[in-house]
């Protein structure tokens, strides 16, 4: 299958504003939000990105559609290196790369009607033929199940429920018929009973239009039901990457194991396993040496974990893990 997105050695280091004295020491500090990750996303795939807060999920999503510039590495979109394209030429790519933000209460302009929100992208990209525009708006509103469209066109965001707002945000991302959409925690702000409607729309868009998704989430139970493949991030690095079913059933990385064991199950007769690791995610300003997880790892095997950064290696078909337990030296 063809690759829509390919990231190689992608890095994003945010400089930290240092105080006067430390600036004299000439030691620049960085938040290593994303630190050398490589992966690809195939056409029509929903690729999940999961991990705790501060692991670099959102930064990765923004890098892939060049909302922020990488500090190193490349992003290929259908084979073109989009990190090298000039800003003026990049506009043509913008409409093919879209994003749905986490919070539909903040991502929609409260002074614009649904119709304004949806036609703005068309106007920006010079596709503002009146009749075409209203046809497209109606079509997209039907795609996101806001029917009949007439009933929603002239409403303002405050007149919509959370679920409806998130569907408007999804519709806006769809207006320009993108090939790739980053969905950044699209349902985490919504009530449980209405989450499924947004999720099912994402699945339908993939099936109907072969839209490719990066699905960012902290909820592994949700990821299992939505994603095809998934990467688990820890402190800016990918710890493990695999088909989602395999990852949930047979996690290999100690961190993935702990993460999955910690997910509560909506069933009082099943108790969650007790292998809860200690402590919290360290600061990405000064991540631990060697394997970044070694400070919390229950399977720590000695000096190698502290000194050498493990590479992401293949351990099976489509299954990659970055852990010395699975190193070739062993």
């Amino acid at each position, binding site marked *: 299958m063809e690759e829509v997105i390919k990231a190689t050695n992608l890095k994003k280091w945010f400089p930290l504003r240092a105080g006067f004295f430390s600036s004299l020491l000439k030691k620049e500090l960085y938040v290593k939000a994303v630190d050398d990750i490589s992966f690809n996303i195939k056409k029509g795939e929903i690729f999940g990105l999961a991990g*705790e*807060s501060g692991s670099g999920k959102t930064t990765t999503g923004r890098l892939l559609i060049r909302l922020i510039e990488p500090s190193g590495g490349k992003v290929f979109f259908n084979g073109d290196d989009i990190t090298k394209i000039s800003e003026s030429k990049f506009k043509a790519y913008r409409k093919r790369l879209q994003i749905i933000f986490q919070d539909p209460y903040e991502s929609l302009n409260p002074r614009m009607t649904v119709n304004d929100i949806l036609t703005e992208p068309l106007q920006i990209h010079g596709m503002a033929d009146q009749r075409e525009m209203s046809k497209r708006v109606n079509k997209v509103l039907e795609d996101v199940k806001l029917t009949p469209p007439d009933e929603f066109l002239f409403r303002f965001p405050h007149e919509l*429920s*959370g*679920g*409806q707002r998130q569907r408007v945000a999804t519709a806006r991302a769809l207006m320009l018929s993108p090939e790739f959409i980053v969905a950044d925690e699209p349902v985490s702000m919504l*009530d*449980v*009973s*209405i*989450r*499924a*409607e947004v*999720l*099912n729309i994402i*699945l339908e868009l993939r099936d109907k239009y072969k839209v490719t998704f990066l699905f960012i989430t*902290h*909820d*592994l*139970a*949700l990821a*299992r*039901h939505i994603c095809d493949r998934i990467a688990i991030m820890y402190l800016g690095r990918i710890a493990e990457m695999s088909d989602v*079913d395999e990852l*949930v059933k047979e996690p290999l990385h100690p961190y993935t194991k*702990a*993460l*999955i*064991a*910690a*997910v*509560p*199950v*909506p*069933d*009082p*007769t*099943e*108790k*969650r396993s*007790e292998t*809860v*690791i*200690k402590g*919290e*995610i360290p600061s990405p300003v000064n991540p631990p040496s060697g394997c970044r997880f070694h400070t919390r790892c229950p399977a720590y095997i000695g000096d190698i974990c502290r000194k050498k950064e493990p590479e992401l290696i293949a351990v099976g078909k489509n299954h990659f893990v970055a852990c010395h337990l699975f190193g070739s030296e062993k």
Partner: protein
Amino acid sequence: MALLEVKDLTTYYSTLRGYVRAVEGVTFSVEKGEALGLAGESGCGKTTIALSLLRILPSGGKVVGGDIILDNVNINKLSEDDVRNKIRWKKISLIFQGAMNAMNPVYPVGEQIVEAIRIHERGVSKKKAREQVGKLFELVGIEPSRMSNYPFEFSGGMRQRAMIAMAVACNPLLVIADEPGTALDVIVQAQVLKLLKELKQRLDMSLIIISHDLSLIADICEKTAIMYAGQLAEVGDSVAIFKNPLHPYTQGLISAFPSIRSKRTRMISIPGSPPDLLNPPSGCRFHPRCKYAMDICKKERPQLLTVEKGHVVACHLMEKSEVM
């Protein structure tokens, strides 16, 4: 006699546009040493119940009816002074939602707990209170030397632990935890829940866990109450609620919830969204979203009906099957 009996609790908020009927006719009980999970979507009145129990409703909010009987004392009939001196923190304490922001940022964490102890237990010296905080810190798994740290020096999980320490400082009979897991990462959340479970056993206290997350409730609560739009839909033993849900709303909520252990399925949502409580639907408040809605559902509010011991459901479908 149960430790806490709430009967017909009704709380309204008065606004310029009328009364928001946030909690209406809610009845439940909590036994000593038992954990009750209060589940429901945002705006269904879960937190309002907690605030009503402690009588700390914001201005405009008022308990307009019902009884709250804790340890044979009707809290609703007590004067404000009595509630402050005898109930709050000594008998019922609350772990606020969002431990991140619940603490005063300009006082050391330890001092804030010392203050709570000295306000509620008159005559305790500062030195004594500090010793007690040290012990509490050990109990919740924080190094006692961190007492002099400010909240910003604590991580999210530690702040949540400190809030728990503050809640159990005066040995309350009942601790209410409002969304104890939200805003925490799964691993930290699991640690905090484990701590709550251990404390419940060690201190033999009762717990009310308020959460929108059913899986969290399934994990620690023996009993579960499902709320919808200010009213109780179903209350029962957690196993019964999760394995044999009877109210259509409970059924919908459970099937909308993904489980990491279950096979990949398409999730089912409940059509529509929760109603505005300024002007809630007539009859059963769930009827506009219910696929089994009948004529009677629009007209009459269903009463809580006992279907088996300890399992009550407010749904007209139950009455019908009873007759049949």
